[in-house]
């Protein structure tokens, strides 16, 4: 890179930004007395002194329910958990070879992955600021590894751009930034921003645009070694006789715009999507397993809750054993209910009319994930793609590459779809076989020579058809938040709701845990005051 009087290099700029970030971080630390401001987590709840004999029944053995049980038992409560499934963990879940999964409608898949390979149907990545989840992962011994969120070398495919051919994210993003920088520079030169910016700031912005956009000395974004530093080379730098690099050609700006790469770029800017991200070693389901290890003796499995009734004396929950059909009743002083709202809505219960209305008001999102096991890591071996996502405008939305066991031989599982909206409904409505076929057809756009050839076996989960949620996550909007959220989280005499649906970190495990801690902290206070 060039350097010299009046011209900052990219590195110098980044150093400056880093220093500013450092100062800001220090400021944050000072003003929040040691608590990171990226999260509302201030440590485990540290409840104690439950009244002797006091009891709580927890409905649902997902993360929210199991955390509630763990902390309430520690506080001295007698705790029992009722869980619909034979498995604890809820939406925290991994499917492994040998597992069988039957969706609503009866389609059954026997997962055929080789040992060690898995599909995470639900959560699959953990932001570094989800401190509650990270805290309990450490406490319960869940080993974490990096989740490779951002990969410049993965692809962007849009049916309306580049003749329908995928391009590298790096190239499209570089050209978007470079062209925007050049255009903004022109606007300054043509005095279009003289009203908005002082002369000194115009100069600084021009310098920034030149550095950030990889513009040449004439403020042009062009095919040259400067832009090649961002977007890559036709012949990369080498050694010896042919060591000199040859730059690549920038794309037509129309295609760059039509590819909508800015959406992918904006996606990575999102707070929840910023690096560093993590995943558990061995599959996301390891978290649910670790939580379950703490509370398994408290769990009654295969319990389908049919009635929740509270009165002055306590809470009675009626449930049916899904294997034997036997109907039982369980009682406790209080209840933490983590049942997803769409399911809870259908259960007979005498909660307050306002709470019933809140439960009824929140619909659930859709989502489909598909795992495709491939004979070899052709994305690594042939394309130098190590983790990250290739985005497409087709139903599948993306394919995502495994973050673990890099460079190894043998089969690996790609995420072949993460579909929502119309694409999610379309895939969910298919048979499991049709979903795999569609995922192969659409994903082949990225790796046409290998995708079908190396395919071994696949598995899919359509959240609309998951028997114990009837959907993916609670889907709030501004209006429903305003009208129902405070009612939904308020203690209703002896019952309190918890889960991702009772948080503003919706559809994340962190939301489930933060909700759970808040609910049991208030419930404990209520119990001591009773």
């Amino acid at each position, binding site marked *: 890179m060039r350097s010299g009087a009046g011209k900052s290099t990219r590195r110098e700029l980044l150093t400056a930004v880093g220093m500013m970030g450092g100062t800001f971080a220090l400021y944050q630390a000072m003003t929040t007395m040691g608590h990171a401001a990226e999260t509302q987590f201030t440590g485990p709840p540290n409840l104690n002194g439950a009244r002797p004999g006091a009891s709580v029944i927890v409905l649902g053995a997902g993360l929210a329910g199991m955390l509630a049980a763990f902390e309430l038992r520690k506080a001295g409560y007698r705790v029992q958990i009722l869980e619909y499934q034979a498995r604890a963990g809820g939406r925290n879940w991994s499917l492994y070879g040998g597992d069988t999964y039957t969706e*609503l*409608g*009866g389609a059954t898949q026997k997962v055929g992955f080789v040992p060690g390979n898995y599909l995470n149907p639900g959560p699959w*990545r953990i932001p570094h600021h989800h401190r509650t989840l990270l805290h309990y992962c450490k406490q319960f011994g869940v080993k974490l590894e990096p989740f490779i969120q951002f990969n410049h070398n993965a692809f*962007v495919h*849009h*049916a309306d751009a580049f003749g329908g051919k995928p391009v590298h994210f790096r190239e499209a993003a570089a050209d978007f930034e470079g062209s925007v920088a050049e255009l903004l520079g022109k606007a300054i030169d043509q005095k279009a921003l003289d009203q908005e910016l002082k002369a000194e700031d115009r100069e600084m912005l021009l310098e920034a645009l030149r550095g950030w956009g990889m513009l040449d000395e004439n403020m042009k974004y062009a095919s040259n070694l400067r832009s090649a530093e961002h977007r890559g080379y036709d012949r990369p730098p080498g050694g010896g006789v042919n060591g000199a690099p040859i730059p690549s050609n920038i794309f037509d700006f129309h295609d760059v715009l039509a590819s*909508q790469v800015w*959406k992918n770029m*904006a*996606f*990575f*800017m*999102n*707070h*929840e*999507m910023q690096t560093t991200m993590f995943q558990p070693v061995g599959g996301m389901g390891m978290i649910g397993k670790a939580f379950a290890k703490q509370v398994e003796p408290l769990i009654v499995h295969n319990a389908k809750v049919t009635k929740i009734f509270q009165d002055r004396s306590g809470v009675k929950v009626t449930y049916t054993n899904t294997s034997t059909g036997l109907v039982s009743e369980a009682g406790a002083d209080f209840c933490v209910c983590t049942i997803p*709202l*769409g399911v809870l809505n*259908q*259960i007979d219960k005498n909660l307050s009319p306002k709470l019933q209305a809140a439960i009824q*008001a929140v*619909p*659930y*999102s859709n989502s489909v994930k598909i795992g495709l096991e491939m004979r070899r890591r052709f994305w690594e071996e042939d394309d130098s793609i190590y983790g990250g*996502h290739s*985005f*497409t*405008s*087709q*139903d599948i*939305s*993306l394919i995502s590459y495994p973050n673990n066991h890099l460079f190894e031989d043998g089969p690996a599982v790609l995420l072949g779809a*993460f579909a*929502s*909206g*119309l*694409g*999610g*409904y379309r895939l*969910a*409505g298919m048979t499991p076989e049709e979903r795999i076929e569609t995922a192969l057809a659409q994903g082949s756009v990225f790796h046409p020579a290998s995708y079908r050839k190396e395919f071994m076996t696949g598995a899919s989960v*359509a959240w609309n*058809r*998951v*028997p*114990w*949620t*009837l959907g993916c996550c609670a*889907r709030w*909007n*501004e*209006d*429903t938040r305003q009208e129902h959220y405070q009612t939904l989280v308020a203690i209703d005499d002896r019952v309190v709701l918890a889960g*991702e649906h009772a948080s*503003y970190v*919706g*559809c*994340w495990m962190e*939301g489930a845990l933060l909700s759970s801690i808040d609910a049991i902290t208030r419930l404990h206070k209520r119990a001591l005051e009773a």
Partner: protein
Amino acid sequence: MMRSMLFISLGVLLALAVGAGPASSRGAPPAGPAQERGDSAGGSTLLKPPETGEQVYRQVCQACHMADGKGGTGAASIPALAGNPRLASAAYPIMLVVRGRGAMPGLTDILGPAQIASVATFVRTHFGNSYTAPVTVDQVKPFLTAKR
């Protein structure tokens, strides 16, 4: 959270809903309340929207109500549309598609009035239902302004 992504995805869906032909994401942010989403794929899709009643059923409704319209039961139930006497009233399927109920979301972000009318007609004349009077866009319109 996810607000920027949200507009992106809903922009696409809105374009579908107003019948702009193949989805384009040049649409403005949606007119309704901004909806939150959690983890998502992070891009934009460009999908040919379903048009006929049968296409809408196969590509949207079938995800939950199943290919045979019989729904399903687990911890709770997805209602059957097959042989469902409530479909005698055209307002019933229109209201549910527009506003949703329980876990079912209102689907006006992906279906326009013509598609809603078509799919209402479809479910009322299939799966053992024989309410043959076609549902019209004019019957759908009054429902579009009301909230759940």
